[in-house]
């Protein structure tokens, strides 16, 4: 990593430090507004103004998903990193997208934090973070709310309805799940989705309800299945490891402390937003259907897909020389520890 900020980071205690912070997401995104921004404010507060952040949002400096690269090559000092978008660089980060029977933002966020901080050695004596994010100093923040299936009107009255339904898929795990359940997967830039869906180009998407408003989906989706869970997208605040080590000790401590203080709030914002969005959507005639009320054959079809997807993902990682089985088991145990639920077959893995 190069030296980038106008002030030299390795300065003596008390000297002002300006850090360049960036995200490709909009400044209203829950991860920025509810996660990284309060974190930065708290760091500034805890250091009595010694550390200040110069912020760039909406891809003004770095676009999604180039944040990790920008931190590594020193274009920015600290960024909101979304590793799931780069399965070639962070193939194990997708684990939080594995489908579940039950969880919520709080459960998944705690499990994600536990995974990032886990000292379980997965391969060659290395932990999850050492295997994936060795170059970063990682400050955990919440995951998204769980992903649901929402459509612009298509309903699932039988397993046959599920097959051939075209949904936008946001990750490789959703692709696997679609393959397992006969869903037709569409990939498309998020900015084009509203246009395409409102004109019927495809049926719907996997998406987290709290995140709908960013693209106006609260006016568009008419049918959402809740009570089944298609994983949680994850993120963390990342800094170049060497850069972090060069910071004065009091600053390092302030950053750690700010993370601990704000972690739960950063998860809560997703829960609150979700409630608001559900109310808005219901007002527009949107319908939320509990998975348990769907016909048995639909439930079985979806559940079978969940079980097989866990195995598929583990195998994919194993095929690439990564500890897939160890990883999914660790994730399962952390989820259950935090109050999440998985189908029986996954429990027996």
């Amino acid at each position, binding site marked *: 990593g190069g030296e980038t900020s106008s002030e030299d980071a390795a300065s003596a205690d008390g000297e002002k430090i300006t850090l360049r912070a960036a995200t490709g997401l909009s400044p209203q995104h829950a991860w920025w507004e509810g996660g990284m921004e309060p974190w930065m404010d708290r760091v500034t507060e805890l250091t009595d103004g010694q550390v200040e952040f110069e912020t760039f949002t909406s891809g003004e400096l770095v676009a999604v998903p180039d944040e990790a690269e920008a931190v590594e090559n020193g274009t920015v000092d600290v960024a909101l990193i979304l590793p799931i978008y780069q399965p070639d660089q962070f193939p194990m980060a997708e684990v939080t997208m594995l489908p579940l029977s039950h969880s919520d933002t709080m459960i998944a966020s705690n499990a994600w934090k536990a995974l990032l901080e886990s000292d379980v050695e997965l391969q060659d004596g290395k932990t999850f973070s050492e295997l994936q994010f060795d170059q970063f100093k990682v400050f955990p923040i919440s995951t998204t709310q769980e992903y649901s299936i929402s459509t612009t009107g298509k309903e699932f009255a039988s397993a046959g309805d599920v097959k051939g339904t075209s949904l936008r898929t946001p990750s490789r795990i959703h692709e696997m799940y679609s*393959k397992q359940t006969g869903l037709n997967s569409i*990939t498309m830039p998020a900015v084009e989705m509203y246009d395409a869906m409102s004109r019927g180009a495809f049926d719907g998407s996997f998406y987290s309800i709290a995140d709908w408003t960013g693209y106006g989906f609260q006016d568009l989706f008419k049918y959402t299945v809740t009570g089944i869970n298609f994983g949680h997208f994850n993120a963390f605040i990342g800094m170049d490891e060497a850069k972090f080590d060069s910071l004065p000790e009091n600053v390092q401590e302030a950053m750690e402390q700010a993370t601990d203080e704000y972690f739960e709030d950063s998860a809560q914002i997703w829960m609150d937003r979700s409630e608001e969005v559900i109310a808005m959507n219901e007002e527009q005639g949107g319908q939320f259907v509990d998975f348990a009320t769907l016909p048995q054959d639909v439930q079985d079809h979806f559940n079978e897909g969940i079980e097989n997807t866990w195995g598929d993902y583990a195998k994919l990682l194993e095929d690439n020389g990564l500890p897939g089985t160890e990883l999914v088991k660790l994730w399962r145990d952390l989820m259950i520890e935090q109050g999440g639920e998985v189908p029986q077959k996954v429990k027996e893995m």
Partner: protein
Amino acid sequence: MNGMTTFYKLYGYFGVLKKIGLVISAVVALIMMFFITYDVVMRNVFSSSIRGGFEIIQNYMMPLVVFPGLAYVYASGVLPKMELLFAKFSPAVKRILILFLIAIEVFILVLVVQFSWTYAMDGMERNTSFPAAGTLYQLWPVFFTIPAAFALIVIENIFLFIKNLIEKDPTFVVEYNPSEEEQIINQAVK
């Protein structure tokens, strides 16, 4: 005179290289047209789209439409600039300006070549790939078209620099082959 013959001979060989690039870009543009149309038809008629089509178009086809033909585009004289003031200078001033502009151009382009090359090598090392329909496709080979395209433009500028040093009339293009539309517009500007 003999020097100039060699110069144009060499430039002719270089021209073949640029033409090949142009043909690659043109063919990929046609493929892209049919690929997207096929995808739309499949989606509407059989409700199944090409798996990973969007990523393949974005990551493979777009760079291949743009970069291979870029040196040809550059040499064709189509790129816009403000010519109003320039046209009013005397030939001597024009020549100095052109040599100066080419020098800056080369400085900038060499930086682009250098850093896009580093980026491509880095991509090869990391095996940079993109996910589409559940599989990973190698992306880094496409990265190399960028330093290649800009290196060709550097060579074009070297030819242009030599030509302006040797010949009397200051010029922005080594050999002018304007399209119909450009010819028309250029005529009008004069």
